[in-house]
């Protein structure tokens, strides 16, 4: 099988690697040299990347054209943020891994995104997993508020590159939060049907928010080094913003639950493998392929 002509190998031999070719060194996963700062940055990078990947599933399927454009625009911002962060994680790791290798050649256990972002978002058929548009609206809102709170603090990082990335991203997150907040209001304080669906989406998403604020040794190390805040620090500001919008949308805040998801530790839900299979398949089959 010959790769399409638009895909050229970056490998010096010039001969494109064939799918399944055991000599294709580029096909195998990279070995990550994981340190607390690298994991700290990858948690944010992967949360942006996988959230972008899920939002992009709406491309061409938005409930209205304007929202189709909005969801994919937000995916584009998040992808840009992920690219900057992955490049930076590669620099911190010091093994010469670039953004593409980190996105396409890591195994599931080496991804450290919040479990919330990997949950199915758009229902592709009546029998497929995934919620409805209310899940998209709500997840977008919870995450935009979380990321904005995080970017705001990261802008004061002792790491100049991370501070610069955050200083730019916070402006984008602000727009995302406004847009998603408008939708939470519209659906929550809308019809009986829209309110019921948003309430159901809120009940589904809320248990996953526990992980957004669960402090661990990686957070402690980042805080000690001045790299960025521990996740627990974000909770108060996040909750203030989220509670205000939920109240305006006439939605009650669900009770907190003991359930704790573990994506930030590299232990993912059953959906993660499917996302990676789709996201990574081209690079795994045609190593080094590019447009």
């Amino acid at each position, binding site marked *: 099988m010959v790769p399409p002509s638009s895909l050229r190998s970056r490998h010096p031999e010039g001969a494109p690697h064939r799918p399944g070719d055991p000599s294709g060194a580029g096909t195998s996963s990279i070995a990550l040299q994981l340190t607390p700062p690298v994991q700290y940055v990858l948690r944010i990078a992967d949360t942006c990347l996988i959230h972008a990947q899920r939002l992009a599933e709406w491309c061409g399927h938005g409930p209205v054209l304007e929202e189709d454009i909005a969801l994919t625009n937000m995916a584009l911002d998040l992808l840009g*943020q992920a690219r900057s962060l992955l490049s930076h994680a590669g620099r911190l790791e010091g093994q010469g891994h670039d953004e593409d290798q980190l996105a396409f050649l890591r195994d599931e256990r080496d991804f450290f995104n919040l479990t919330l972002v990997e949950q199915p978002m758009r229902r592709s058929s009546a029998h497929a997993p995934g919620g409805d548009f209310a899940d998209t609206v709500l997840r977008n809102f919870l995450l935009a508020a979380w990321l904005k709170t995080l970017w705001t603090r990261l802008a004061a990082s002792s790491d100049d590159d991370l501070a610069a*990335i955050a200083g730019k991203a916070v*402006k984008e997150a602000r727009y995302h939060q406004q847009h998603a907040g408008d939708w939470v209001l519209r659906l929550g304080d809308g019809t009986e049907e829209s309110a019921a669906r948003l309430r159901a989406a809120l009940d589904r998403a809320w248990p996953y928010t526990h992980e957004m604020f669960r402090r661990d040794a990686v957070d402690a190390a980042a805080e000690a080094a001045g790299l960025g805040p521990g996740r627990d620090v974000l909770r108060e500001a996040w909750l*203030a913003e989220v509670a205000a*919008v939920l109240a305006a949308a006439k939605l009650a805040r669900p009770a907190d639950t003991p359930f704790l998801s573990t994506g930030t530790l590299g232990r993912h839900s059953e959906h993660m493998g499917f996302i990676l299979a789709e996201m990574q398949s081209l690079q795994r089959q045609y190593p080094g392929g590019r447009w």
Partner: protein
Amino acid sequence: MAEPHFLESAAAALASRIEAAWAALDAVPDPEVPAVSVRDLGIVRDVLEHGDGIEVVLTPTYSGCPATEVIAASVRQALVDAGLGPVKVTHRLAPAWTTDWISAEGLARLLAYGIAPPSGTAAVAPGAPAAIRIRPPGVACPRCGSAQTERLSAFGSTACKALHRCLACREPFEYFKPI
């Protein structure tokens, strides 16, 4: 007196090379909003001279802006065409680009092109809670000037614009979002 004279002319040549580079940048359009140049847009942070070469420092607009690479390539090409090569283009992220950096000429050109320029300044007090609102404040129509407009979509054809509609002349138009 030969030596000082030589130094003076060298300094003049240096200034004119950098001036020539800035002038060349005036003619490089933004690929997605061709009415304005990259210089008008305020994304050129610096032009530096290194020996025979010129370095242009750019600040990207949005993290995911797909035009970033095209802009770097067209800047390089324009300076090489002006005989100023070799040219190196570098990126500087901080401070983050803001629409406050669009020049007065740039704002006027946007308006003439039919894109409503960003209203007010982008500076939002850090930490200020996001406003809860369905309807954004009115943006004047770039065609008829009416303030009776409404937003159709918070996101437009590119990351930097939103889509609005004038209720007076009924024409849709794009609005360059303050950021």
